[in-house]
């Protein structure tokens, strides 16, 4: 049994006494209406006893567990409470889950990003459950006048075997809440887990399938108005003037005005990315009326100047330069033509790659590209704000509530204590909702109106005011000797405006002579994190190149990777390699076995790929078949090592989604620009993968181990792009170097 000191999350418990019977946790919360599981038979308790910031127990034994982190579809609202319930040792059917509001005095890292929720919550959530269990035991020991060490628990029951005394958690909850918080608590052995590692249904499942209000767009309040914005039509432009002579008098319209999201002297925060600081705002009674007025509003735009802004990146100030100009995909293509020919910044060099390339018998050189992508969450950006001179209440979908609280506090000049943020279930995130300018806009609009407002982006607003996945380029070179041995490897990546290089990832460490360099080019198109940032391109490029390399060396593509990984494990080159070669090889071996890789079927064309990111390892085999001359993804095998799997069926769902998403973006999606203007603004022009294009079958396997859980939201997304390219080559004889593969032209839609 492992014992943990409770100090890590001690602040979770310090405020307990002041919060019992009141405070934010017990106040009415629109989002906290109970999520009863279908099996639930117990009626709601008459009284709740708050044991700590994560949970309260009713007199009848029902347990409410707060889910601290934002839910974007990664299913943390189910899996995080599972960790608490496991250590509390209660019956999952007695658990009610509530979405916690932003509460930095109780919770740490209330953020959805980087596939870190479970990894970073693993200890604190288990500790919260274990601490409550220990306090229940103390309460029972006191009541029964026995030694606490003689009391055991099982499924929400306290048991004293020697005397035969038994009690549910409910009757002991009141006393337990008054017990001193233990300084150390035991955690369960992994072999004793009853909830972790078993499949539990999405706690919001019933609400979702019956259409109950869950999302930001569904939120409403008394006297609430609807607001929409009009932003410049092109990157590189800004608002000059508005003429509301026609729009102002239209039915339902309350007010039309301009706002600045950030004031002129504002030092931007790390997630304040926003191309259009000044926008026009239309506020009215109903969505349709506001949409109509939006069409009637006349606006004048002008070119925006070069900008230099201070960015406060978690304490360190940096200056961000945004160039003026109206950029087109044609300009970006020229950058992709020219920059890779220039000398880049060398990030890593092992051995003497230049020399090895100069004496190589054969050099293989290939270039790969991908376009900008819009996140396109199905629920467009939106936020509710009710700002008065005294308080600000904000409700909606946001991945970074704590960080945005700071931005809003600065913008409104209001103490954080007066700002209340509630998180709705999100209709997708994929990184887009890390950047909460829409939340600041909502707050500024509500302040101006002196009334609650819900800001809604139309799909067109959402797609054309993005924080896009950057456009990337990768040049790979490999040197082979006369015996077809790999003697040097060179990767040079770049992008607009950032480079996707991961210099210390595989195959770094597996090749004696290795060089990684990069370049970047500034742009005024706003970019940000997109599911598995940088990996979402570089994995597919690298894995397609390794496939081509294996072919040139006449090796099986999986065996070739395993050879390299064996070298990296036994005799690694360099010391900064950031992956575990044996776990990397583990997923390849698992997918090889599960897909029966060595078997043959002449009608099936197979591609493979593997990648490591966000602390987890994923390998794929993708089977294509040709139907009426068109490639169809018949089956995908996915092997994953993400440590302990908390909720297996939900984890499989997430991996299936990553596979579909990866195939979709590699095959079909692109955002292109003409004179600063996005050329796609809705789903009639921007193609997303649809039912008929999804794999017919996806089989997911997890490596079984006892390693603490790592990321899962992002890792299954990047490698499948490479597996798709490699399978397409087998099926058609054509290698695809440019995403989307459907057009296979650099930066084309």
């Amino acid at each position, binding site marked *: 049994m492992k014992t943990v000191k409770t100090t890590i999350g001690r602040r979770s418990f310090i405020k307990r006494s002041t919060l019992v019977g009141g405070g934010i946790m017990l106040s009415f919360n629109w989002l906290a209406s109970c999520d009863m599981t279908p099996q639930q038979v117990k009626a709601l308790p008459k009284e709740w006893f708050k044991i700590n910031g994560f949970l309260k127990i009713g007199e009848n034994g029902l347990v409410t567990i707060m889910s601290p982190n934002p839910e974007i579809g990664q299913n943390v609202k189910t899996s995080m409470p599972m960790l608490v319930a496991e250590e509390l040792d209660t019956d999952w059917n007695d658990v009610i889950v509530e979405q916690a509001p932003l509460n930095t005095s109780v919770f740490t890292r209330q953020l959805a990003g980087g596939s870190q929720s479970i990894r970073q919550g693993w200890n604190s959530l288990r500790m919260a459950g274990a601490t409550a269990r220990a306090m229940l035991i103390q309460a029972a020991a006191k009541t029964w006048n026995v030694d606490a060490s003689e009391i055991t628990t099982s499924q929400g029951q306290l048991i004293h075997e020697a005397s035969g005394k038994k009690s549910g958690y409910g009757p002991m909850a009141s006393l337990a809440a008054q017990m001193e918080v233990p300084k150390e608590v035991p955690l369960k052995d992994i072999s004793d887990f009853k909830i972790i590692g078993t499949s539990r249904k999405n706690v919001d*499942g019933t609400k979702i*399938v019956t259409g109950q209000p869950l999302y930001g*767009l569904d939120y409403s309040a008394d006297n609430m108005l609807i607001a929409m914005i009009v932003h410049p039509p092109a990157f590189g432009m800004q608002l000059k003037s508005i003429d509301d002579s026609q729009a102002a008098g239209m039915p339902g319209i309350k007010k039309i005005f301009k706002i600045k999201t950030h004031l002129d002297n504002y030092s931007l925060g790390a997630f304040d990315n926003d191309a259009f600081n000044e926008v026009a705002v239309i506020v009215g009674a109903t969505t*349709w009326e506001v949409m109509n007025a939006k069409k009637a509003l006349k606006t004048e735009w002008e070119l925006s100047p070069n900008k230099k802004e201070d960015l406060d990146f978690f304490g360190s100030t940096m200056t961000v330069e945004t160039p003026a100009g109206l950029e087109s995909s044609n300009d970006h293509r020229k950058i992709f033509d020219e920059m890779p020919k220039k000398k880049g910044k060398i990030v890593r060099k092992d051995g003497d790659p230049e020399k090895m390339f100069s004496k190589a018998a054969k050099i293989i050189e290939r270039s790969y590209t991908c376009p900008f992508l819009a996140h396109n969450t*199905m629920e467009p950006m939106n936020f509710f704000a009710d700002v008065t001179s005294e308080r600000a209440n904000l409700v909606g979908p946001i991945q970074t509530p704590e960080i945005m609280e700071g931005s809003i506090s600065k913008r409104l000049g209001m103490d954080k204590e007066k700002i209340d943020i509630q998180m709705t279930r999100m209709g*997708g995130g994929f990184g887009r909702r890390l950047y909460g300018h829409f939340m600041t806009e909502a707050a500024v609009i509500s302040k101006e109106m002196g009334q609650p407002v819900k800001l809604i982006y139309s*799909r067109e607003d959402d797609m054309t005011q993005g924080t896009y996945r950057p456009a990337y380029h990768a040049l790979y070179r490999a040197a082979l000797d006369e015996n077809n041995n790999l003697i040097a490897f060179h990767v040079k990546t770049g992008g607009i405006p950032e480079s996707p290089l991961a210099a210390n990832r595989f195959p770094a460490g597996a090749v004696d002579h290795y060089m990684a360099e990069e370049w970047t080019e500034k742009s005024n198109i706003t970019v940000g994190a997109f599911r598995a940032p940088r990996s979402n391109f570089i994995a597919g490029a690298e894995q397609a190149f390794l496939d081509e390399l294996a072919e040139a060396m006449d090796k099986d593509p999986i065996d070739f990777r395993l050879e390299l990984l064996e070298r990296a494990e036994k005799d690694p080159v360099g010391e900064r390699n950031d992956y575990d070669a044996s776990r990397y090889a583990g997923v390849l071996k698992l997918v090889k076995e599960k897909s029966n890789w060595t078997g043959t079927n002449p009608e099936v064309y197979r591609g493979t790929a593997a990648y490591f990111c966000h602390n987890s390892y994923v390998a794929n085999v993708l089977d294509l078949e040709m139907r009426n001359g068109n490639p169809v993804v018949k089956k995908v095998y996915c092997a994953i090592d993400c440590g302990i799997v908390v909720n297996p069926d939900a984890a499989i769902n997430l991996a299936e989604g990553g596979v579909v998403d990866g195939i979709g973006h590699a095959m079909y999606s692109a955002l292109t620009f003409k004179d600063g203007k996005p050329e796609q603004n*809705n789903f009639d022009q921007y193609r997303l993968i*649809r*039912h008929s294009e999804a794999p017919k079958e996806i089989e997911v396997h997890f490596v079984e181990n006892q390693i603490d859980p790592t990321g899962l939201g992002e890792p299954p997304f990047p490698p499948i792009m490479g597996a798709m390219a490699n399978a397409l080559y087998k099926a058609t004889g054509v290698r695809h170097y440019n995403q989307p593969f459907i057009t296979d032209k650099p930066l084309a839609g």
Partner: protein
Amino acid sequence: MAQFQLNVNGEIHEVNADPTTPILWVLRDHLNLVGTKYGCGIAQCGACTVHLNGIAVRSCQLPVSSVGTNKLTTIEGLSEKGDHPVQKAWIAHDVPQCGYCQAGQIMSASALLEANPNPTDEEIESAMNGNICRCGTYTRIKAAIKTASNS
């Protein structure tokens, strides 16, 4: 503005709205039935799917003035207790990730099964192709439709 009497989920509702208002926004803003979702506004994503006399339609393209006495069914009215076979199958397969598109998916799927109780894989794909799921739950949706089809 004009007055309309709408038959939604078996109840008659009086609505005072601009005749061009799409049913999507009448449901969401006037009747507080927010289960029907806004996704694109141009009938490309299927998030707003409802039934008009049992047929799946995109409510973002259906002006309130065109509905007349026809019967509208939304996700809230698909079943009384959330126990329509399609809803049950969705829970059994734990289909949703973010869940935002799923009301539309369920409305398309239930209309399909009403018209064709035993659809083939190709028929499912064809009927569901207008419903985008950004999270990529397509394989589960298909499996759930088959489960519902067999129940």
